[in-house]
């Protein structure tokens, strides 16, 4: 049984890693080598692609822009979603089911046509081309997701824990922060990671709401297409660099994801 499990895992990881490897491989090659033929490793490894990404200001500022709106978005999403998810998991109230489903409907709008009104809205409130505009716009799909994921985790915590805490004299904020949040740490970890991820890779909204000052990395990547064709090497290097913050996030939340919670901590 254990052997079979490891085998499944190994095969799947191989499936995941081959394209990633080919991306890394590509990032160390010159364009001529990439288009010249199939090589399993760079025959003439070059750091030129990375040099472009790290030294040209348009590249590294776009990288920082992305990081700033993504972290803002992660913070906002978690802060508003935690109390809301608690309300959904513990109480019934007027319109709760409709509200819960309505939240998710906001992920369903096909972007092509919605981009123009978004542009008009954020220009009208004077936020166009700022990281906060992108952070707020991404809340549209991240907050509902955060509420949904957190609600699932909160519902799996027995209600008796809340009741015992209130009997023991805890106030709501104190109970929520000291007892409840630590219990759903796996959920918070997963939610933070998903908020990060969906915001980090989103292209259409981020590109529409910014022009120069807050241009995100994903939009900068689409500029590698020039008159002389696509600059495959630089695109690959930027793709590899774009993986790194996500790896850092998943590394920080790994214990929260991996740790099951023990019953009866209260």
């Amino acid at each position, binding site marked *: 049984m254990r052997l079979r*499990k*490891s085998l*499944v*895992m190994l095969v*799947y*990881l191989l499936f*995941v890693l*081959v*394209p*990633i490897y*080919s*991306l890394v491989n590509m990032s160390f090659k010159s364009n001529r080598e990439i288009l010249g*033929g199939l090589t*399993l490793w760079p025959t003439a490894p070059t750091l030129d692609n990375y040099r472009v990404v790290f030294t040209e200001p348009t590249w590294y500022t776009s990288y920082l822009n992305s990081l700033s709106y993504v972290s803002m978005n992660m913070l906002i999403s978690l802060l*508003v*979603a935690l109390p*809301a998810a*608690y*309300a959904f998991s513990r*109480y*019934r*109230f007027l319109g*709760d089911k409709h*509200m819960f489903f309505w939240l998710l409907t906001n992920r*369903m*709008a*096909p*972007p*092509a*046509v919605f981009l123009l*009104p*978004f542009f008009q*809205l954020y220009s009208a409130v004077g936020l166009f081309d700022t990281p906060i505009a992108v952070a*707020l716009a991404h*809340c549209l799909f991240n*907050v509902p997701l955060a509420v*949904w*994921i957190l609600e*699932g*985790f909160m519902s799996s915590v027995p209600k008796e824990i809340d009741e015992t805490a209130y009997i023991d004299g805890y106030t709501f904020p104190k109970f929520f922060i000291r007892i409840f949040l630590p219990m759903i740490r796996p*959920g918070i*970890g997963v939610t933070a*990671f998903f908020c990060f*991820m969906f915001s*980090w*890779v989103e*292209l259409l909204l981020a590109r529409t709401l910014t022009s120069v000052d807050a241009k995100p990395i*994903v939009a900068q*990547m689409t500029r590698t297409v020039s008159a002389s064709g696509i600059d*495959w090497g630089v695109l690959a290097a*930027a*793709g590899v660099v*774009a*993986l790194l913050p*996500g*790896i850092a996030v*998943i590394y920080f939340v*790994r214990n929260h*994801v991996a740790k099951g919670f*023990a019953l009866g901590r209260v």
Partner: protein
Amino acid sequence: MKPYNNKAWWLVLPVFVLVAFSAIIPMMTVVNYSVQDIFDPSTRYFVGTEWYREILADPRLHDSLLRQFIYSFCVLAIEVPLGIVVALSMPRRGLGVPFSLILLSLPLLVPWNVVGTIWQIIGREDIGLYGWILNSLGLDYNYASNPRDAWITVLVMDVWHWTSLVALLCYSGLRSIPDVYYQAARIDRASHWAVFRFIQLPKLKNVLLIAVMLRFMDSFMIYTEPFVLTGGGPGTATTFLSQTLTQMALGQFDLGRAAAFSLIYFLIILLVTWVFYTAMTHNDNKE
């Protein structure tokens, strides 16, 4: 049974305000577009439901809608079971945990246009690994000219890209099952299948609901990856619904018609998701 308390609205209010700000105004603007014929911002005519009638009769919508449904169905049928299997196979403790978590999440972190680029290269028979292997096995594989190959490539790309999402959700759901459940199962000498069927699967129901709905919505709106990989071709083999919409909105500058298309599109997703949601939460209400 959960207590009824309208004060809970105060906890939900911040979310409501934040989401409504970005949701309701753009939605109303699109509704407004969809009933007008817009030549330029100052020249527009009210046309009522004409766009809707025209779109619903448009064979392009029918074709791409059918393609879209087949595609999303395949995505769900492959990714959900595979995701569960991967989650069950993941190590529970030790160094393997962070290692496999990080490796699994890699595809999710690749920006969507780069995902298309990777598969564009890897599928080519002259410079890509998969294309080269398939062709040296004697298969005549070419995603740029053969519609079936293009379609399969887009599907495999999606499986590669998104199965990790299902797996990560299921894994974290599995981790929140208290150990006492497993201990009880061991005392009862429950089989692996029984443990899965009666302990793990019921506990996974919440995360699976999220995973199925997310995968349905996102696969139904897939745009960037196939656009980069195949550009919708060859012919219209991989022209999914969002690409038909974008061609209409940007290619033909038909804002009114495109807005009507978006709303129909939105309603289809809404309807299907609602059916999923109702079907999967139906039992909760009975209990």
